[in-house]
């Protein structure tokens, strides 16, 4: 399958270009990060809407149990070498995810424990069992908790499969080959035999020190052949994450209608015969598989960020489900892209964190001269998701802090205007009018400050809604009409 994909790519670029692109850690890390982000965001959107965001956290931890059990099965049951990219891992992870959710529901359905506590009981237990198993079988399964909890996306490019396209013939070096390094070796000399090479009894044998079969790439680097083979080193993580992203995207695309219905109205979905429970477990299994595919790159804790944070950011920006899916994927991918640079200190190309560190080192604290911001890449990507969330939280046109504050201010002002107009309307042409509507006492009747009243009257006057006559505030025709309209709207609402 990798081969197929590479063939496809080779239609667009030469093998050398592809080789260079895949040899670039930045390129590969961003690509993998973006795939983790997209596959996480697609599922995370539904988790968020179903109020199950923390289930992804629980699952990403219990996946460890699935991995450990898969390792134990591989080593003891199938007598294989434990391999972190084995399909058994995917099976184990999916099962452990489903087990987590099932266990949580089992505890919850007993009616004795609340839902949040049920989750909080289930996943620490499964995780604890996983750690106990690891420490028990550590010698045989070569699995370290740290590898699972903290991934390293920066080295993903190095872990690659080799694909060769031209000049791929294996090179066989025989003793007659011009590049063969031959020599004579004494077989009964010291230290194993009694003789020295000078003795006439010494027996010699022709040997060839580099004879054998070499794959083209090694043969080329050793100089046995002159033409370089066309090789593409394809990082394995790209395939794993690519497949997972594809599966998630297909799941969401093909079952879009069903997912939507089950998310917003599970009762109706069940009544229409859509099996929302089955869909629910399928979603959970995919979350587990995504978590296990990603832990290599970003680690079990940080993958939670890719599930929750971009989806929450998109949730603040739109009300449409499909827009939310697209937006959250885009934001996640963007966070992966900008996060790689942030790990090297470059914040969106605007500011370099090294400057901050130099400043801190000089004036505030002693950083011991360590003024280079060069950090764990996946963490920096998570920091960027957090930054984008913050940005959306503040400036989202619909649900942001700024727009909310402005909207509230506008509403408050409009309400006050209406209040004033209503007051004038109620007391105009009554016998109390002189007392209620006098410019210098009116503020007391509304319980406003004098200045505030003056500002409000000035504003209404400028819009020709009221006028001041004999020190009384009186409505104009225009004001009267506006008030009528407002009251009608109130009634019809």
């Amino acid at each position, binding site marked *: 399958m990798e081969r197929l994909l590479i063939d496809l790519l080779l239609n667009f670029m030469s093998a050398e270009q592809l080789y260079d692109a895949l040899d670039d850690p930045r390129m590969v890390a961003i690509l993998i990060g973006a795939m983790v982000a997209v596959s996480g965001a697609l599922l995370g959107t539904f988790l968020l809407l179903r109020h199950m965001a923390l289930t992804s956290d629980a699952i990403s931890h219990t996946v460890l149990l699935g991995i450990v059990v898969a390792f134990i099965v591989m080593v003891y049951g199938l007598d294989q070498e434990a391999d972190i990219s084995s399909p058994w891992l995917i099976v184990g992870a999916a099962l452990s995810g489903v087990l987590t959710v099932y266990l949580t529901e089992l505890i919850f359905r007993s009616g004795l424990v609340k839902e949040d506590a049920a989750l909080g009981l289930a996943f620490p237990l499964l995780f604890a069992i996983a750690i106990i198993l690891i420490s028990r079988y550590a010698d045989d399964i070569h699995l370290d908790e740290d590898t699972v909890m903290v991934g390293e996306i920066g080295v993903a490019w190095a872990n690659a499969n080799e694909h060769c396209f031209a000049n791929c013939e294996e090179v066989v070096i025989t003793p007659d080959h011009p590049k063969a390094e031959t020599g004579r070796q004494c077989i009964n000399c010291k230290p194993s035999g009694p003789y020295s090479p000078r003795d006439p009894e010494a027996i010699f044998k022709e040997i060839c020190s580099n004879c054998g079969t070499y794959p083209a790439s090694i043969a080329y680097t050793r100089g046995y052949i002159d033409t370089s083979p066309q090789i593409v080193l394809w990082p394995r993580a790209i395939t794993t994450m690519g497949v997972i992203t594809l599966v998630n995207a297909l799941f969401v695309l093909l079952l879009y209608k069903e997912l939507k219905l089950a998310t917003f109205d599970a009762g109706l979905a069940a009544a229409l015969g859509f099996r929302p429970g089955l869909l629910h477990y399928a979603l959970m299994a995919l979350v587990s598989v995504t978590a296990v595919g990603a832990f290599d790159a970003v680690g079990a804790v940080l993958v939670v960020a890719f599930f929750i944070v971009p989806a929450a950011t998109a949730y*603040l920006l739109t009300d449409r489900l499909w827009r939310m899916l697209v937006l959250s994927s885009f934001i996640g991918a963007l966070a992966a892209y900008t996060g790689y640079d942030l790990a090297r200190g470059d914040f969106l190309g605007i500011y370099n964190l090294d400057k901050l560190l130099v400043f801190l080192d000089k004036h505030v604290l002693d950083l011991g001269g360590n003024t280079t911001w060069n950090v764990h890449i996946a963490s920096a990507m998570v920091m960027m998701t*957090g930054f984008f969330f913050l940005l959306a939280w503040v400036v989202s046109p619909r649900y942001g802090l700024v727009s909310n504050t402005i909207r509230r201010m506008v509403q408050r002002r409009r309400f006050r205007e209406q209040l004033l107009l209503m007051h004038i309307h109620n007391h105009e042409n009554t016998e109390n009018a002189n007392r209620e509507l006098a410019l210098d006492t009116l503020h007391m009747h509304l319980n406003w400050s004098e200045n505030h009243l003056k500002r409000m009257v000035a504003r209404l006057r400028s819009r020709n809604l009221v006028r001041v006559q004999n020190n009384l505030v009186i409505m104009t025709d225009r004001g009267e009409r506006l008030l009528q309209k407002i009251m009608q709207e109130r009634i019809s609402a």
Partner: protein
Amino acid sequence: MTKNHTMLSALLVPMVTIIPLSAVLFDVEFDYNLRMVLLGASILGLVTGVLGSFAVLRRQSLLGDTLSHAALPGVVIAFMLMGRELGWLLIGAGIAGWLGTVLMNMIIRTTRIKQDAALGIVLAVFFGTGMALLSYSQGHEDASRAGLDKFIFGQAAAIVERDVLMVSGVAIVVLLIIGLFWKEFKLLTFDSEFASTNGFPVWFLDLFLSTLIVVSIVLGLQLAGVILMVGMLIAPGVAARQWTNNLSSMVILSGLFGAAAGASGAVFSAAAEGLPTGPLIIVAASLIVIVSLLFAPERGLIWRWWNQRQDQQQFLSESLLADIYRLAEKHGSTTYLVPHGMLTHLHGRAARKVLRELAAHRLLEKQATGWRLTAQGVIQAEKVERNRQLWKLYRLYRDEFEAPPVVENFQQDIREVLPREVVTRLERLLA
């Protein structure tokens, strides 16, 4: 209540005796190291248990998970500035966790994001920031793994006397504060709206309680680690909730459960070479939860299952008596022989066993082809039938008689639940 206490003491005895027991059973040697771990784990279990019961009741179980993750950047910054000094690490973690709580509350208050996602956002972003800082503090990225495992998984074995003293000191302060603010926390837990209308500073109390939880989590980090802390916080509270409906007994019990889990985790980890303490504590706490869920009186699953079974049996036996009685009445003779097949057809196979039981109580008589009421059975059936009639009348005339509202239960003697004058009026109606 007394049954409750007997069962509870039966559960507590092995917990309290776990230390002397383990010395005999598992051949554990109580050296200095184990004593320290044991003390530290028990005291921590006590504190987290006490605080956890509030978290459980307030539906904030997963707050512990978030706070323990959110503490990482604080720990790292404190470590960079002050070095490996437990007190400063605590303060750093406390500040970071506290910030996380504030941020989470702001997200919930000002956006439409719900608590679960807000918890997740704070957890992930804070932890990511902490990881970035950690890798920075250690110079280059791969070294980030070196110190992290201690934070994520804890290392109980490294506990020394000074840590134990520190943990004890903090524990005493936390318990004192809970004692002092008992009334406020109780109100906050059960009816925060009432508390706020009565002028209690709810947001402050909320934050205060969260801060205490942060403190206990930070204490526990070096023992159980980030991920397992949430279990230590919740499990004892959930277990204690099953045994009692009273907050003070729940808190005390939860503390005891936590201490027992901590102690047994420490002991078992010493008994089985190479097994880590933190996860064993969680397994012990989970076992306590399972036992509580199953066996707790009145709430426990087994208890409930047994009660339901009893109810079903009683219902079936009363229905059988009443059916036989009515059939007999229709046929004009109280000793009418009801065919066996008819009863099993009406009530299913379960009826056979109940019929035999009724016969054993001499309420029924078995004949070759069916069943017949005995004299005693007639009296009993009349009583049951009469009770049913009274209940039906109660349903009809409840409002007219201004009778107190009670749960309709045909199997209960109506005279036990309704005032006498209402019953007499109902009886007069029946006559």
